[in-house]
């Protein structure tokens, strides 16, 4: 096992010093060292999307990011979307539309939706489907998730 190093990560605007070796993923760091448990470990293989976070504004799987490579980059997790206790428009839309069931996929799903809305403020149904196509949800059937994002984009 390679020796761990100290790595500086900027998460939700805050500086954190964490330990990471060559195998430590960003998901490991978030959950095991920083108790930022919003990102979930659904498969740890990069398929389900429950661990999605924003890395420099792009939605990526935290379970596939080697923590050391995230140094100097802007990391946003689900915990960082609120502003002064106010939900982001995307979060509020998910709440109002009834898109949330068991909620386990939701942090990753919301992150994917946020990334889309930041890149394309008027995204339509097909673009929304594409954006969330990497987020598996076993409860909702995706309909109300798409409804929620449409209510933000007007698409």
């Amino acid at each position: 096992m390679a020796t761990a190093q100290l790595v500086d990560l900027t998460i939700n605007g805050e500086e954190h010093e964490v330990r990471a070796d060559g195998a430590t993923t960003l998901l490991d760091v978030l959950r095991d060292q920083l108790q930022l448990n919003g990102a979930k470990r659904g498969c740890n293989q990069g398929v389900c999307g429950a661990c999605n976070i924003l890395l420099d504004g792009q939605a990526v799987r935290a379970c596939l990011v080697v923590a050391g490579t995230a140094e100097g980059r802007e990391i946003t997790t689900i915990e960082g979307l609120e502003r002064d206790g106010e939900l982001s428009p995307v979060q509020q839309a998910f709440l109002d539309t009834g898109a949330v069931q068991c909620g386990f996929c939701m942090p990753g799903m919301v992150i994917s939706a946020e990334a889309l809305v930041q890149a394309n403020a008027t995204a339509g149904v097909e673009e929304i489907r594409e954006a969330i196509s990497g987020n598996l949800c076993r409860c909702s059937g995706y309909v109300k998730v798409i409804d929620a994002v449409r209510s933000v984009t007007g698409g």
Partner: protein
Amino acid sequence: MNDASSNVVGTSMPRLEARAKLTGRAEYTDDLSRTGMLHGAVLGSPRAHARILSYNVDAARAVPGVKAVITGADYPDLPMGCMIKDERLLAKDKVRYVGQPVAAVAARDAETARRAARLIDIEYETLPEVMTIDAAMADGATLIHEGLGDYIKIFEAEFAGNVLSHQLLTEGDVEAAWSDCDHIVEKVYETQQQAHAYMEPCAALAEVDDTGKVTIWSSHQSISRVQANVAEALGLSMAKVRAMTPRVGGAFGGKMEATVQPIVAALALKTGKPVKVVLSREDDFQMIRSRHGTRIRMKTGAKSDGTILAREAELFYDAGAYADDSAGVLGFGLLMARGPYNIPNVRCEGHCVYTNKLRAAGFRGFGNPQVTFAGESQMDELADALGMDPIELRLKNAMRNGDKQFGGHTVDVCGLVDCLEKVRDQSDWATRRKAGKSNGTASGIGVACLSHVCGLLSTGAIVRLAEDGSLVVSTGAVDNGQGSDTALAQICAEALQVDVSQVNFVAPDSDTSPYNWGTGASRITYMVGRAVSDAASEVREKILNAASMMLEADKADLELAPGGKVQVKGTDISVGFFDVSMFSLFGVGGPIIGQSTFLYDGEPFDPKRTAMMGFPFGNLGVYLFGAQAVEVEVDEVTGKTDVKRAWLAHDVGKAINPGAVEGQIQGGFVQGVGYALYEELVWDGGQLVNPSFMDYKIPGAHDVPYEIHPIIVENPEPTGPYGARGIGEPGFVGVAPAIANAVRNATGIRLRSLPLSPEKVLTAMLNDDGGSARSVGAAAVSEYATVTALPTAARASDKEDLPADRSPAVPASSEPQAAGSNRPTGGPVKISPFARVFVEGLKDAGVSIVAALPESLLASIYRACEADDDIRYIPVTNEAELPGIAAGAYLAGKKAVMIMENSGLRQAMEPIARFAYCHAMPMVMVMCYRGDLGEENWWGHNHAQTMAPLLDAMRIPWRAVRKIEDIMPSIKKAIKHADSSQWPVALVMSGECVELPNYGKD
């Protein structure tokens, strides 16, 4: 029930816990942490069936950071199991499936625990693996549970050998009824094992206090079942086991019985420290449970006018290695096998069988989806035979208010026809039914009806008036994500006319919650909703009692008013709940508490009407009805089925939270699309081949339509809270047959095996000989097994031909055509002896398709293929057709041998070689040259100059064949090589061996 009009029941208010889930603050089991917590890992068996000979845990114990290593040998023999007590905390003496927990480790971190677990050395003596229903039921089959006879069973089980439950339900006289039928359809249907694939893997955290009491938090559907399983597995009193559930990330039935809780509790007791275990996704796939794979023979008979007289069903459910709740799944499947129709003569028999696989257990639908796939497919097949529209046939036989379910229950309110008509009208059924083709896709629509149940077993609720007049609701109901916390809070708020914010719905906790069997059987809204409503009514009565004293008024003159008040009717005089609480706590009476407790109390089964043998249920619940229509598009080149739209009508009585009801219908539908089209647990011997989301595909946003129409139908249930019934499962139940019926409408293909993968659809379309369906008369019935005989040895899918057919329109007098044969018309064909041997050799090598130009030098061989029933000979007019045929054959799992000759060699060979190379197709290309390989033939082609460099560049191995007697061995070897390397192979045959005697003169 309430004094004023509804103000919160019937509104789609957001879930109470939605905000927490959306901010990442909601806690699931893996988000919990306790001081000094250790992490655990579970070791699964590498064998499907073996005796455990010895354990060596020294190496594991020696790993730094390891605090405990436990195996089955460390624990007494304490049987556990919900219906048949056939399991233990950890495997003892034997393992019965790959992945079965045999040992566990607790260590300072998860990685150390996993590493140590891999160092546990267990010696096994392999036993014969019994992997299929047929193998398990065969004479002399190896017994998986030798002690089955001695196991404690909580119901009157009929069992024998590897059959853990044999059940029979009958009504009327099915044998006599067949002779009154004008049309009979009898078919066999097969369904696959499906994984629950909830997004949160199984997890548990256990902690022990100084009195030896174990507290467990886990991802689960039932605190009562966790408590019972841990107590039973470890021999503890339930007074020493406390079970709680934090947020649960989906369950669908997979978390109804023990997952890892007993093991985690054992580790906590052993170490004296809190221990958490979170399964990896791979372990979750392999260790926990699945949906039953089944084989179902179903037979239905009707009169020409469409009146169905008889239904017979024979069910074989594959239970896997442990019984779990399989007997219940089989029983419920049998009960649902008649379908929601007034069929007077019914015989349903079932066998639930042990095999050395991951056990199967409850999963959304609980045995009903399988039997509904068979029944609703068969309804369409019957409609075909009768020349009736599928909806017309169903309407003719559908249950209506006051009709009786199979088993004798009277259904006072039956919304089936309502649902079916709404689905027919809203989907524009007649127009879409006309089907159509465009651009290589075929579109169609299919329908399915369903019935299900909600209710089952017992529950209770306690509602308390808090000191300030707000309310506390305590139940054992676990919210898996379906929204029960919110719906139950809405019911309480409605009953007492307060805002939902005044209702404190407390988390389930076995220390404080009344017993609740669990979140399953679509029962929480109905059962716990009733309990909450009744408990709230008791609180209401006590509030009115107190108020009547406080206001010195007759109770009859008082009513509740919105906002937590009691008012004198027709006046402004009122007193608030706060005052009432103060009065009772400090004045008269004591704390106001309301409670309800009940066991489902509907009509029992009627033994004078329905004979039941081995059936595990006493009473069930309220019946649910629905209808589903699905529109599909099938790609005619790839066989892929795209679901375009769905209309899903369900009679929920009263939607307590309409948004949540829609979400359950949509989610159930999408999970059903996965079941119908994509999902299948695949086994290689005893090993699960696809324990990963990469290889086990569940629907993503691209795989399902956006246009899913949930149609909420409300015919109130007289006994339900505000008229409500359940909805958790029904959304799933009819999807697979609706899709199979739609595929049939679109393509004319009837598939009776799930999932309807592109391979199956394409194979069926390739084997299709055209024509329309004909009714299966009584003569055809004899080809199927009789009710009492065991199933035949070979699964249909083991043979080349999958259970798909499209019966050609053939006059009754002619011979039925073998699949894929093109019998030439006219007199007998002269085939040279060599050609006959050649073709036998091809067949022997497993070749089933030969495509070639008929006017070629090897005409004799081609004629021999043409005349043979087992080889499908496809004549082509242009070599350019060959790659497409090869692709189709490959996708259908057939072996294709391409025979090509001189005349078009370069033109034909090159595109085929490139195609095979690009797709890594294991195809054998046989190239025949006139003349010797090195010399120029009469077309001026020299192989050495043209094809060899091309084959070499594509790394397609080739060998020259120069002697006649080498031809067949070379072809056989080449086929084997291509199969094993999954790569094309070429044989180049020189003119010497191709220049046959009487060449071209046959």
